[in-house]
């Protein structure tokens, strides 16, 4: 995956419906790159 995908799916571990609200920092760290169209990082050493 080298381009920003059209959709993203994130499943938070050990997290209930209300527990999601306590995960704002984790969620923000995932959502901000999505909102900013950041492409996923490409690790070195593969291609």
């Amino acid at each position: 995956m080298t381009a920003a995908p059209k959709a993203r799916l994130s499943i938070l571990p050990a997290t209930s419906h209300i527990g999601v609200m306590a995960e704002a920092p984790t969620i923000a760290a995932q959502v901000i790159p999505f909102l900013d169209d950041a492409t996923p990082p490409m690790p070195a050493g593969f291609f």
Partner: protein
Amino acid sequence: MIAFPPLQIFRRRHPGVAAALALLASAAVVAAVPEPANAQQPATATASASAAKTGYAEVNGLRLDYAVHGDLASKQTPLLVLHGAFMSGEAMAPFVTPFAASRPVITIDARGHGRTGKVRGALSYDQMADDAVAVLASLGIKRADVLGYSMGGSTAIAMAVRHPDRVGKQVIISGAASLDGWIPEVLAGIAQMTPEMFAGTPMETEYKRLSPTPDAFPDLVAAIKHIDATPFAFSDAQLRAIPGRTMVILGDADGVTFDHASSCSSCAAAATSRPRRRVS
């Protein structure tokens, strides 16, 4: 499922209701979650505490309360944050601060909630979506990214379906595109809720603190029960027609099923890009 003291009591007496309450979102309930030892912000921090602009918009026969964090005149795409049932814009403070550093953030108190006050008639996602779009228009915002939690997530989907040219990207957190996206036991528990079961809970306390109609909490309970008993469904075709990118976020012990969230994400991934209409 995280256990909250009030819910532990409910769980013994009303197990179905306890499950439903645990799955409904409440700012004050969130405040009951033990903070990590290194937490810098108090759990009760409110979104409006740092708001640059607060007010209300006369839309669709209502005075909808809003708060704007940051500068709408900046060139950054605004982010609209939509709260869940029994919450308010203030309750979404944890989702305002991290984003407001890089873009303007708008919160709304949905009809029947927070400072917007007493609900008139039944709630619907279509109606709340239209409300949100009207607030954006009143602020001169042509298009915004939208982040919605729970009830706000379903409202965000309705916004993107009904007003695709007004929504940029959407982030659906623990929200459903159809009523059957919820675990049946949760809906069954919600159906058993009564206002008395909320007596003394942070949910009721926050409502009374914020609402211009503090005695109308039973009306909100009735409205939430009604919307969570009323079938709705955005089809796969409607989800695939949403032009903006979508992010779906779910807890692995959520009230929305994993299969439903995965299906919504798959539809969004299969969406075909199409030109947007110019929004004037």
